[in-house]
Each structure stands twice: as structure tokens, then as C-alpha cells.
């Protein structure tokens, strides 16, 4: 099988995730999209690892999964804290801090 299929899929995942972060407003959905972006990287790593026949990247992917989980935990923690303060859960409403 061609490696290209895997790469195209991972690129699509990455692009979907990135687009989601850019256009979605709900922070929970944004966190989901971030996971998608990390998974895209993990998929590419696995594909290459299989192609090259060495296992370095497979360990890497395990760690990426753990890191992704940590990120979501902190992210959800912040979302919950905001929810408790009754702050709007809409990133566009986060207007105190303009870019």
C-alpha cells in the first residue's frame, strides 16, 4: 500500500482540526479539534514508522496520546472554572482580550 494514503488522511485530519479551531466558537469543540490535530501528527508518525520499519515513533505516539490527554484535562478545567464564574462559553465573547 502506498504511504500517500496515510499521509493524505493525516493531512486531512490536521486541516479539519485546524479549521475547527479557527471557526468553531465553543471551547469544548475547539478542544476536540485540537485533539484531531494531534492525532493527525500521531497517524503520520505511525505511518512513517511502519514504512521505515523502526519502532522509535511508536513510543513517541504513545507519549503523544498521554500529552493530548493532559492538555484536554487542563483545558476542560479552565472551561469548568469559567462556567462556574458564569462567563460566556463562546470564544468570540472573550472580548476583554482583543488580539
Amino acid at each position, binding site marked *: 500500500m502506498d*504511504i500517500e494514503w496515510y499521509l493524505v488522511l493525516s493531512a486531512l485530519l490536521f486541516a479539519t482540526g485546524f479549521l475547527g479551531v479557527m471557526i468553531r466558537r465553543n471551547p469544548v469543540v475547539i478542544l476536540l479539534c485540537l485533539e484531531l490535530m494531534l492525532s493527525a501528527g500521531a497517524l503520520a508518525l505511525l505511518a512513517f514508522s511502519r514504512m521505515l520499519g523502526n519502532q522509535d515513533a511508536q513510543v513517541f505516539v504513545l507519549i503523544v496520546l498521554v500529552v493530548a490527554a493532559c492538555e484536554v484535562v487542563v483545558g476542560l478545567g479552565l472551561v469548568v472554572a469559567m462556567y462556574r464564574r458564569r462567563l460566556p462559553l463562546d470564544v468570540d465573547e472573550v472580548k476583554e482580550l482583543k488580539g
Partner: protein
Amino acid sequence: MSFDAPTIDYAGLSPVIALTVGLVVIVLAAVFDSVRRFGPALALLTYAVTAGCLIWQWNANLDLVSGSLRIDGLAVTLSLLAVIAAAVAVLLAIGDPSETQAGRSDWLALLTGSLLGMVILAQATSMLTFFVGLELLSIPLYALCGTNLRRRESLESGLKYLIVGSVGSATLLYGLAMIYGASGATGFQAISDGLQAGDGMLSDSLTLVGVGMVAVGLAFKVSIAPFHQWTPDVYQGAPTPVTAFMAVATKAAAFAVFIRFFLVALGPLADQWDVMLAALAALSIVVGNVGALAQTSLKRMLGYSGVAQAGYMLAGIVTATQAGVDALVFYLAAYVAMNVAAFAVVVIRERQNGFSDDISTLRGLGREKPLLAWPLTIAMLALAGLPPTAGFIGKLYLIEALVDDDWTWLAVMIAIGTMISLGYYLRVVATLWMSPAGQAEAGAEIDTASLPPQIAGAQADPFEDSRADRRWYLVAPALIATAAALFFGVIPQPLVDFAQHAGDALSVWIS
């Protein structure tokens, strides 16, 4: 049953071990009420031991953990800078609302965890440790940004930083995957060999996409334009002690791995990425300096100025020479001193002023409290690159490295950026010293108007502290940093040696 145990170089790993032990102790201390109040002391002790280990390993030059980490001059020097920044953050946070509300031990544990990530990052020589270090640095920082629970800006900045930072991490990971595909290896040295031998099966264009994405991911971390948009917001929203730590230590650690990854792993491709990085550096210098001109909040201004300063430092990598690395490390060290001085004064003023960091709150400070005004003045002059401060020597060093490697146009960009930067740095100096005393009251009125909307809605702020300018743990960092910025401006040689120690570590890979 006997087996072949792995050899562990405890000496080389001692800084990481010290920090990890310290982290565990700090977390455990949270359980016991009686010990909890010694948290800062414990944290400082941990950092002191770590610094001791780093100095002990000053001349070390060896691979650890089967080539995943490497303790050498670059790692030692930049880790030391990060440790210093963390120690300052601990001091500045004593009595800060963020630290009190989040729980002292939790706050310190997060800080120590982030520092551990930095120390690992500075030593990283494989993609794995690179990524782990970066995330270990970032994730506690996201949480730290949100620790001032009663201010909505703080929570929002935490979330914003998390989103932007994670996009950066994901981009970086994707880039790493590409480079892994191109080189077939995860260790930096092996990547370099693989790229040279063409072991990988990717076309050149995909390799370059990978390099580009890694650069973008790192640019997010060190706030290089055009990936800097989060910087002013997060700097302003985060509790100031965290901002101070973030501004200084993140840059030190991220630049360490930036140097190592680009000069060691991607060394064979230097001719391809140098123009790209030069363009990023130039853009950063312009965007950061122009953006800072319009700011009225000190922390936002320092955020934009950080973008510009990151641009100056990136120029050191562009040269891909040892002199460039030396200049970068020198500049980073000077940057630590100048930023610590500035942020310490901001912390003090914030506590006296109901947590407003508007520049107008500084009016007449030169007359009323010269002890506060001088550190800020000298920090501003140093950031602007005026003699006799370390900032001037740092710029000189960078320009010399650039001109020596035929990057004169970038050197001129630094000069032009510096000119623009005078516009905002000197505005602060002028506000400190040149506002007539009569306007001090007018300034006080503006304060109340620009007070952050407080969630608690309390009238008397329990964290306000009118005597903040007499607290030794707030004033001492400011004064020491100021003295350092001046001292290394007049007698720069010790710091030059320090920086060259970092550059020497890479002498195998670059000229």
C-alpha cells in the same frame, strides 16, 4: 536473577533529578497544613539545589539516557537562566492573589513542573524529549495563567494560551513527523545523518514543509511574528508573576531547543531555512515594535516588546555560527535581567494600585519613589539598547555576529527596530520622570477608571498592599536585576564567557 541494568549517569541527570524530587516534596507538603506556608522556601531550596547541580555539571559534555538528553554548555547556561526566572517568580508571587487563590503548593508545583519541562527541553536531543519537554513546559503554564480565579482576564488568557499553544504543539508534532519520515530517525544527530545520506523516502518539498512546520510551532512558543497574536493578551491577562516567568524562562528554554534542533538536526539544510528564519526575525522586529507603540498597558507593551526581542534573538540563529549562538545566549541573559527588573516593578505597582498596569499609574514615580523608578528606568533603557546597560552590549554582540556572517541587512533591521522601540520605552521613562508632580492626582483618577472589572466586586481589595514597595521579596529581585543589567553593561566579559560556554557546546556542528 541478574540482568544487565542500564547505566545511569546520576551526575549528568542531577539537575532533572533535583527538580523532580523538589516537585514531589512540594506536592506532598500540600497535605500538611503546618508545612504549607514554607512552600516558597521549599521551592527556592529546590531551585538552589538545581542551580547547584547545573553549576556542578558546568563542564559536562555528554549524552544521557541513550542519547535522548545531552548535558552540555548550552543546556547548563540556558537552564540556569530558566531557574533564575523561576526563583524570581516564586518571590514575586508571595502574597499574589493568583498564588493564594490557587493554593500556594499547587501554584508552586505547577511552576516547578513547568521549570522541569524547561530543563528537559534545554537538554533535549531527540524528538521525543523535545516534545515531552515542550508540553511539560506548556501545560502547567496554561493552568498558571488561569490561577487568578477572580479575574476573568486570567481565566480567559489561560484558555486562549492553551488553544494557541496547543495549535503550536500540534503543528510542531506534524512537522516532526515529516522530518522523521524524511530522515528515518528521531535523535537529532541521527536526523542530521539521515538527511545528509538521504535515507528517508520523502521528497525535498515535504521535508521543507516539515522544517517549516517545526519553525512555526516553535515560533508560537517564543512569540515570533506572525504567530505572536496571543502574546499581548496572555501577558496582560495572566497574573504578573506568571507573565514574568513566561516572558523570560519560556524564551530561554524554547530558544535552547530551537538552537539545537536547527543547528544540529537540521544543520545540513541550513542554506534552506536561514532565509526563512531571517524573514521571520525581520517581521517580528517590525511587528513587535510597531505594535508596542500604541499600548497603554505596561504588560501588553512588554508583550509586544517581547515579540520584537524574540526577533532580535532569532537573528542569532539565522547566522548558524557559533558567534550567533553566543550573541543569542548573551542577549537572553541580558533579557532576563531587564525583564525581571521591569516586571518586579509592575508587580509592586499593581499591588499598590488595585491591579492596574496602565502606564499612567507610573506618573511622578521618579519623584515619589526613586527606588522603584530607577529599576524600571534602567530596564527600559536596557531594552531600548542604550549604554551603559547589558542591552547595548547584547545588541552590539548580535550585530557583530550578523555582520560577520554577511547578514548586514538584518543588522540594519535591528538598528531600525531599536529606533522605533525608543518611542515606547522612553514614553515609560518620560512618564516616570517628566510628568509634572501636579498631574499625579489626575493619574490616580485614571487608575480607578481603568480598574479591571472584578468578579468578586469587592470594594476593599484584600490583596492590595500599599506597602508593597517595602517588601524585600519584591524589591530585592528588582534591585538585583537592575544591578546586573548595569554591571554587565560596564563589565560584560563575564557574561560573554557565559555565553561562549553555550556556543562552545556546539563547536562540533557549527563553525
